């Protein structure tokens, strides 16, 4: 990992009744895209709002380069933010929105607006009222607005959650291309693993205000540090150690790491769920444990008695429940 540009040092934020962010430290390199991934209530949005300056941390620091921006108001921080519901100004047209943060006037202003609109693939949209745009277009206007003043860091709050599923994949690709074209350091919040993995160079998994693990998508998927990360970033079977020949405790195994055919474990297929030419089979072991197996869809039928083996153990835990 290259040198840290945006640094979060031991950030903490408490609200009456609960701790939203607890001793959180993260480094983001220049030009890197970092995803903050976690379930609702994990503190990811609070972290983003701390970065933007809308909340003040109770402890810790935020640094950009060598500059401490912790106490800087949002207006002076030069962090661009794209809001979950975009927060476009309904009384201004596209150009009015995109130009809002510009200090330029006249031709230079118009030029910059056109430039940024071209960057988000909306050339010539200056005079459109924002209410007349589709959801995807509004999202891109919001992105253009935040990029226009050339911010140091780009923050995105659930950037795709407001779009319908068919639009999401395309918009995600466009978003990644736009960010990469600008080469801006980006932090975005999501609760969807697929989105985090697809957009993020690295992903930070948060849980109850704490950082569980940070790493590339491959690291998180193949080497999760905790059972929480293992199950949050993908599907995983929690199997009693005895089943795998261990002395006790519990092991985690991905569905694709269970192989149908030969093996020491026997069970009955109770359900099958199609997924893109493959299928997830639910196999009931004699002990009652349910296992999920990913295999070609014709590998077995419901009611078949099958045998299984474990190709790879993702994580093994001792007797204690590490949650």
């Amino acid at each position, binding site marked *: 990992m290259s040198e840290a540009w945006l640094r979060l040092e031991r950030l903490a934020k408490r609200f009456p009744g609960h701790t939203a962010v607890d001793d959180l430290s993260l480094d983001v390199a220049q030009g890197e895209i970092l995803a903050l991934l976690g379930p609702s209530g994990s503190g990811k949005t609070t972290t983003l709002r701390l970065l933007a300056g809308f909340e003040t941390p109770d402890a810790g620091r935020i640094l950009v380069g060598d500059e401490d921006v912790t106490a800087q108001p*949002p207006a002076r921080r030069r962090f661009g933010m794209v809001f979950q519901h975009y927060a476009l*100004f309904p009384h201004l047209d596209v150009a009015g929105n995109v130009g809002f*943060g510009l200090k330029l006037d006249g031709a230079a202003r118009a030029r910059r607006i056109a430039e940024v609109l071209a960057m988000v693939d909306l050339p010539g949209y200056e005079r459109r009222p924002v209410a007349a745009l589709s959801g995807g277009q509004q999202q891109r206007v919001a992105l253009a*607005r935040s990029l226009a003043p050339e911010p140091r860091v780009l923050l995105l709050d659930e950037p795709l959650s407001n779009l319908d599923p068919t639009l999401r994949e395309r918009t995600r690709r466009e978003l990644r291309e736009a960010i990469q074209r600008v080469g801006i350091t980006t932090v975005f919040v999501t609760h969807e693993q697929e989105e985090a993995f697809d957009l993020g160079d690295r992903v930070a998994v948060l849980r109850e205000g704490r950082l569980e693990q940070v790493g590339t998508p491959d690291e998180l998927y193949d080497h999760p540090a905790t059972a929480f990360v293992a199950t949050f970033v993908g599907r995983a079977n929690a199997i009693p150690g005895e089943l795998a020949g261990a002395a006790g405790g519990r092991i985690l195994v991905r569905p694709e790491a269970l192989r149908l055919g030969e093996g020491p474990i026997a069970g009955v297929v109770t359900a099958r769920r199609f997924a893109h030419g493959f299928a997830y089979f639910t196999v009931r072991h004699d002990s009652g444990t349910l296992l999920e197996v990913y295999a070609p869809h014709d590998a077995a039928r419901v009611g078949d008695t099958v045998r299984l083996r474990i190709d790879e153990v993702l994580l093994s835990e001792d007797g204690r429940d590490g949650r």
Partner: protein
Amino acid sequence: MKRPLSLGAVLLAALLLWVVAYPLLVVFAEAGRADLGAFVRDRTEWQALWGSLWTSAASVVLAGLVGVPLAFVFERYDFPGRRVLGALVALPAVMPPLVGVIAFLFLYGESGFVPRFIQAVTGAATPPWRLQGAAAILLVHAYSMYVYFYLFVRAGLARLDASALEAAASLGAGPAETVRRVTLPLLRPALVGAALLTFMTALASFSAPYVFGGGFRVMTTQIVATRLNGDVAVAMLETATLTALALGGFALVQWSERPGSVAAIGKGTPPALRVITSPAGRAAAALAGWLLAILLLLPHATLLLISLVPLNSWTTETIPPVLSLVNYRRLFTEAERLRPLINSLWMAAASTAAALALAVWAGALVVRRRARLSRLIETLLALPWAVPGTVLAIALATLFSVRQPALGRFILVGTAVILPLAYAVRNLPLAGRAVLAGFRQLDPALDEAAQSLGAGRAARLWRVTLPLLRPALAAGGALAFVTALGDFVVSILLYTFATRPISIEILSSLRLNDLGVAAAFGVVLMIVSAAALGVGARVGR
């Protein structure tokens, strides 16, 4: 697709045309017979017109200067007493106009408490000011109309999306710049709405100019004066002029409320309250708040105090020497004084029931059936709102002073019907707005479910629609009842001795210098009004 033209829609439209539009047409027709040239050359007419216009504009500015900052303070900051004060601030709205005016008279008038107090302190022989002319009118207007700005802007602020403000901040806008470039533009619909409402109310205002005007002329008082002088034709011209002005305002309001002027995008959450935490700040806020509350409550308190002063017991003292309930006893024991109370109550109740019934009928046609003529019916329901009370009263008095059944004209003037009719017409917009909004919130599937369960039209109305409309009926009904109960401007032109309402009795008590009884009537009016609004709000929940 052609919508059905139902008999009901035709009947309702005809009825509304008859009592809302036809009277105004008659006014314009009668005005056409007057000498327009003499009217245009008469300087006093221009003075009155100009007086109406500039006091209305000044009322907008003053009401805005008071109401907008208050709205910001109460919607954005938290401090001790915020909730109680926030409710108190809306209080002037529930004071009937004439009652507010006499309260100001008792408080700031020549022999009112404040001048007496100043005289006692300074030892001056004459009162420090006379509460008269444009300044007095503007004072009363500012006091009673800032509430529009306060309520509209508070509602607008509550609807603001916090992230729009945060977006401005993250784009480098400081607090002042955010207010100027984001908050105020987003509040524009609220500001325009409040300004138009204030302007129209001030234009139609009658009680304040009538009591405080002196030689200062505005259109509403000019019309009544001309009419009392017997110049009926000129009065018609004046009425037509004021009507045209008001209808212009009405068109502006309709235009400003057209959908999609500034549409919010997506959903938003309003900004969080900023809690004032520093002890000094909290103390200052609380102190300022309570001073404000006292200032706002002074008129009410004054009225209460004066109502306890027996006739002729208070002359030169700063504070009244004797207090007793004798005025209230007179109110309820003397038949001549009980009469107006009973009159006002039954007329307000009858007119409210009539307005609500018409509104429900309209709602069923306009919202449910989407019958043809819907636009016409809705416009006619809203129109009386724009018509100043003076105009409405004169229009109805003109239409119903001749017996021409073929032209739909009957003699109702001088009967017990005319005042409740006028109140009902005046209350159509309040009732219509509430009930139509109620209808629009109903799920049509509920009515269809009742149909599929075999309920006929009447059964559905009684067992489904009306129970579901209860909040809207209660809210609209309470407002309509209170407006009719406290009415002065329509009453003074249409009452007969037998049907005289409370406001007329207040005025005649004032003329007889029986201040205590006038104040006691005012207090009773306020209590009944507050009770009606309270019941309306409770049933509405």
